[in-house]
């Protein structure tokens, strides 16, 4: 590992203990992945909800925050992933005071480090998207796969400690998706149908994630005939990352490093695996639960865009959520603020639904919420969420936003999936 003079000084503690810890941590990871040097990053993005951090993680952040300002403050713009508690709403969903207290301590520490509390996993839609070729240290799998694939940025999955280390040093080890050779296609898929709505995009992402199955795989997707929107690719990428730990894909004619069918390959493209609509239907049927009582309907993972908030408001206008069902719409603080201003929050909440801001359902003490509220059957249009949430004691079901809303109003799972 080649270190320049500044890096040697950091490692020697000349820039303070936080930067010494950070560089030491990065060197361990660099050695594991045979990185030869560091690469400067434009931003860092830290996943650090308090359910993951626990008391020990918060104490670690507080220990960094006690150092002098010139030693502890981050060196590149650094933002946060969703947190565990929405202070405006946590009591309404059965979260405890100790959760809010721990969250408040973490925020104080983060702010002392100079970190911007954006609390979002859709920063590429709401904060500052990276540009083609820009190196980043992003810490949410959905953010990473979207940034690498759709925007052509260069980032690995950076867990909270490593994203924080990158923020403190302004660099990250050059391995994985920072290197051209790891961004080339490894698996070829031809899709024989066009996904019709967000849940189908998520399901297709989940299918490909399962098949490709490794962080070191880069799926190449052919057959998509019109350019999907940002929300479609958001659900597609987030599900692929969740099911397969995938950090990058190419979509021929859509993503910037795949302008044509030859571009993602070093040599001849391999034989493709064909994905037809029947296979998509089989995937969705794994999460079908027609007729069953639904305890909680969740729109989250990823957080909703402003466009999704409007779609939800349109579906809920003048209607009431069933008294034995909870409907949660989860978004970022920026989108929540815009939704307040544009009247979308009021339209959604007048149905009895709750809008949560700056959190994500599975990062918000989901197990404890299930126990307190008696939630078991969860319905969502997020393929990512159904993959994650069963370990927290839920029985998940998957349907379109339209069918999710109809089910929330009926109190049980209704209807076939429809576009929406």
């Amino acid at each position: 590992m080649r270190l320049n003079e500044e890096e040697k000084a950091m490692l020697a503690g000349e820039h303070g203990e936080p930067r010494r810890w950070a560089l030491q941590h990065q060197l361990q990871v660099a050695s594991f992945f045979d990185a030869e040097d560091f690469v400067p990053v434009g931003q860092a993005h830290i996943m650090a909800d308090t359910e993951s951090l626990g008391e020990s993680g918060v104490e670690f952040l507080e220990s960094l925050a006690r150092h002098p300002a010139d030693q502890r403050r981050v060196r590149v713009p650094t933002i946060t992933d969703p947190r565990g508690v929405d202070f405006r709403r946590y009591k309404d969903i059965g979260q405890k005071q100790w959760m809010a207290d721990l969250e408040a301590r973490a925020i104080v520490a983060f702010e002392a480090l100079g970190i911007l509390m954006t609390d979002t996993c859709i920063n590429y839609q709401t904060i500052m998207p990276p540009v083609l070729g820009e190196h980043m240290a992003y810490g949410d799998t959905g953010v990473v796969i979207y940034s690498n694939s759709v925007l052509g940025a260069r980032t690995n999955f950076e867990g909270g400690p490593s994203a924080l280390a990158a923020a403190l040093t302004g660099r990250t080890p050059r391995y994985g998706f920072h290197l051209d050779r790891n961004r080339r296609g490894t698996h070829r898929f031809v899709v024989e149908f066009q996904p019709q709505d967000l849940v189908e995009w998520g399901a297709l992402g989940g299918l490909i994630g399962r098949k490709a199955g490794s962080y070191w795989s880069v799926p190449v997707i052919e057959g998509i005939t019109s350019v999907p929107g940002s929300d479609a690719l958001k659900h597609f990428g987030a599900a692929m990352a969740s099911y397969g730990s995938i950090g990058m894909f190419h979509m021929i004619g859509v993503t910037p490093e795949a302008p044509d069918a030859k571009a993602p390959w070093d040599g001849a493209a391999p034989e493709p695996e064909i994905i037809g609509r029947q296979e998509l239907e089989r995937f969705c049927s794994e999460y079908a639960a027609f007729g069953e009582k639904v305890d909680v309907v969740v729109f989250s993972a990823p957080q909703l865009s402003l466009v999704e908030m409007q779609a939800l408001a349109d579906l809920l206008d003048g209607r009431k959520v069933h008294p034995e069902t909870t409907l949660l719409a989860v978004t970022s603080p920026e989108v929540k603020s815009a939704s307040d201003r544009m009247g979308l929050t009021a339209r959604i909440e007048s149905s009895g639904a709750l809008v949560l801001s700056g959190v994500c359902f599975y990062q918000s003490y989901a197990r404890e919420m299930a126990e307190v509220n008696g939630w078991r059957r969860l319905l969502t249009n997020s393929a990512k969420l159904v993959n994650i949430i069963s370990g927290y004691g839920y029985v998940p079901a998957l349907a379109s936003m339209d069918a999710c809303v109809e089910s929330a109003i009926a109190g049980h799972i209704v209807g076939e999936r429809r576009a929406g």
Partner: protein
Amino acid sequence: MTAVTLQGHVGIGPRVEGIALVAQDNFSARYDLDRIKGVFSRPGHALFGQSYVDRILVLNTAKGGVATAWMLREMASRNMAPRALLFNRVNPIMAQGAAFAGVAMIDRFDVDITRAIETGDRLLIEPETGKVTIMRGAG
């Protein structure tokens, strides 16, 4: 006692000994574990219901989200962590988490590690050299 040595890539963390818990499945602390009870809690996981505490987990690959990077240290702080982790191949999160938590981890072996090791095997893990020794017949 017979000893079989397997060679992986140079790993992370301290030299440790312990008992293996093996499955041909993948791993995420967020998706798969009840970290309070110390058991695999996702019904679809091959190790569902089994305790991972103080075991050397031997699994195929890391999957899913980034939370494991914090969670390994959090589990270790309550003495509820696996003693070590062996994978065929990990993603960056697992490596970052092992480094942050000081948990021993090795991947990239010359064999399928989930088939070379059996649940209950006593193992010696040496991350500095990437070696894993199976000590069968040891008491």
